[in-house]
């Protein structure tokens, strides 16, 4: 298992119950992390969308996360 520290914003902060959580995932891709998140917090699947950002940029599902990367959950944005 791999351990990731994940920042949460907006409604994901409410769903995860905090600004930053530690998540265990079976693999190192964004998709692996997403699966682990959805399993632990099923309410995430009810969102209109959920992007995962790595190092301040939107990440593809196939991207691999490395140690020290900054990971963040991006629920539907609503700025402006």
């Amino acid at each position, binding site marked *: 298992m791999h351990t990731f520290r994940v920042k949460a914003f907006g409604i994901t902060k409410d769903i995860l119950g905090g600004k930053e959580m530690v998540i265990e995932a079976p693999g190192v891709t964004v998709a692996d992390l997403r699966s682990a998140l959805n399993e632990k917090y099923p309410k995430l699947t009810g969102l209109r969308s959920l992007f995962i950002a790595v190092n301040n940029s939107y990440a593809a599902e196939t991207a691999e996360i490395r140690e020290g990367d900054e990971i963040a959950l991006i629920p539907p*944005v609503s700025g402006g």
Partner: protein
Amino acid sequence: MIKITEKPIDVQKVIDTASSLNAGAVNVFVGTVRNNAHGKNVVWLEYEAYETMAVGEIRKIIDDASHRWPLLGWAVSHRIGTLKPGEVAVAVAVSTPHRKDSFEACQYIIDTLKVKVPIWKKEVFEDGEEWISAHPAVAVNS
């Protein structure tokens, strides 16, 4: 100038920052908090940003706009924290030699900001609150 700030936005300063002596046109978009949404009274709004990424995403949008229109100056300022109806949430200003480009570039920047930049708002009503656009159907959590 890209600014994410808890302080009230000075629109005149945003305009001045975007202005240029070579420009004939400045277009400015100001987004303000409405006093109602879905027929309910908005008491206040809470804006939250993933600041480092938000600044980076706005920079990408400006870079894209600079390639599509002859921008001579620009400024984007977004407020976060607690906002009351009537307050300015965002101000975007661009200057270009001619006016058509200023309208197009400013609209592109605010349209793209609204779909790409990690900023979120929660509307607080008298009887509940809601993170805007979070769910497929609009529903107010009471």
